[in-house]
């Protein structure tokens, strides 16, 4: 077992790298979710041009490989526009977030379409505005369908964060490469397997944590929908009562 561990100072480097990876994951996830919802809903808009814009975004974000998008945003754009490079972590998050948004928008669109039409029709009968229909009737139900593939996508993005090591951000991957060079320089522990086995464990654990978080979310949602009769938000209840009376 001893042979599979690294030096304490090397774990310290990995810990710092892991924090950077988590930071990038959090930012890109946040941006990705916002973009997913915005463009997923926009894909179903009544207006043609809104649908068109959303379609163009989705196809571009999905169609461009993450690493190309990363270099375009982090290196090419600053050179072309002749502006200074913003924080590399931020630029990396924008690239990954745009990428995630492309996939996520399709998940959101598919989930909304999977909700039976009767739900919308009932909501219309209850005199709910389109916004209320979406917020209180369709999206909450769609969320149950959205969560599992979203968890999948988040793990994808976690692994995608390793790409930022190529533009000079010291994430887990770059920390591992730095350690590798130190090992080579000191001509010690030349076995690269041990180093990368440790990295593998770190990524695996992080992926399981994400997995667990989404499982918990799914279970909470399931309880809400399959357990006791759901309570409608106050505003919706009043709307219903208004129609009745």
């Amino acid at each position, binding site marked *: 077992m001893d042979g599979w561990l690294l030096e304490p*100072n090397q774990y310290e*480097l990995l810990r710092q790298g892991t924090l950077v990876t988590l930071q990038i994951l959090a930012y890109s996830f946040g*941006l990705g979710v*916002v*973009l997913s919802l*915005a*463009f997923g*809903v*926009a894909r179903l*808009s*009544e*207006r043609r041009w*809104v649908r068109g*814009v959303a379609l163009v975004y989705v196809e571009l974000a999905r169609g461009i490989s993450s690493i190309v998008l990363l*270099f375009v*945003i*982090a*290196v*090419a*754009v*600053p*050179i072309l526009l*002749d*502006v*200074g*490079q*913003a*924080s*590399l972590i*931020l*630029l990396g*998050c*924008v690239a990954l977030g*745009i990428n995630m948004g492309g996939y996520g928008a399709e998940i959101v669109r598919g989930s909304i379409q999977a909700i039976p039409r009767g739900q919308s029709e009932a909501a219309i009968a209850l*005199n709910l*505005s*389109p*916004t*209320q*229909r*979406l917020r209180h009737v369709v999206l909450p139900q769609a969320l149950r369908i959205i969560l599992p593939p979203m968890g999948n996508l988040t793990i994808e993005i976690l692994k995608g964060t390793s790409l930022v090591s*190529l*533009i*000079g951000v*010291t994430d887990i991957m770059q920390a591992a*490469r*730095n350690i*590798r*060079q*130190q*090992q*080579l*320089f000191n*001509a010690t522990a*030349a076995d*690269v397997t041990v180093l990368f086995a440790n990295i593998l464990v770190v990524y695996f654990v992080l992926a399981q944590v994400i997995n667990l978080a989404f499982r918990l979310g799914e279970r909470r949602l399931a309880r809400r929908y399959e357990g006791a009769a759901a309570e409608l938000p106050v*505003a919706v209840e*009043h*709307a219903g009562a*208004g129609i009745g009376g």
Partner: protein
Amino acid sequence: MGYRGNEPTTRSGSRRWLRLLALVAAFVVIAAACGDSEPDDASGSGGSGGNGDGGGLLAQLQESGSITIGIANETPFGFVGEDGEPTGIAPDVATAVLAELGITDVNAEVVEFGQLIGSLLAGQYDLIAAGMYITPDRLQQILFSDPDYCTKESLAVAEGNPLGIADYRSVAADPEATMAVATGTVEVGYAEAAGVPDDQLQVFADIDGMYAALEAGEVDAVTGTAPTVDTQVAARSGIEAVEPFFPVDAQGQDLVPPCGGYGFRLENQDFRDAFNEKLDELRADGTTTELITAYEGFSTEDVAKANGLTVDDFR
């Protein structure tokens, strides 16, 4: 009536909501893309370039006393040491020269070797300190200081050298032999000049991957500067280095000598000139010889050869 509460009541609510969402999304993207560039500029830590006011870079660096340099994670030329500080030949020499200019706080960004120039132009850092060879092609894109070392090329091969590889021309002579090169390195050009066909060249993005491929038997040879090859061979088992050689073309004519210098953006002429002046002083008084030969695999001849050359010899 029939509706009470704090929700919007109009029928066009959904459109408004969509518009708002799209706006927020657009804002997030734009703010994220532009927002941080200014604070970064002000701190002078990285993004100070590319604004066209290159003339002020030297003054700006001297005022803040700090600089970010780009290195390529290649021992012994430049890597991040265990203390997190940039270490290696090029960062050591650069640190000594920059100290003469009053810039004492040196931070390093590690990028892939092939990405060094792109990231310099994007303003990620203000100086390349990676032992980068001075070549006519690179001189089109960036400014170089005078060289501080020259070196021979070498090849790493499997133990016992089963294919009898000695230099690039012997790789070209054996159609079965494959050789790994790192993308963007000067070795790519040497191999082509020596007549190695493309299908015998395997291009890698990083140094480490090439030697791993050699150990795994995926390639028959890995090329690099003699010091890199020596360092890698010493740290690994089952591979050995050939006798270092100066690269020649297919006819046996000498190619431009491989010598490394420091890279600057084209608009930072004043910074390069100031750096070069101090570097020449340190070359003359033997400081660079001392710093460079402290690393294994570098001889005083390697440095002496560089000391006899200026950047104009490479055009």
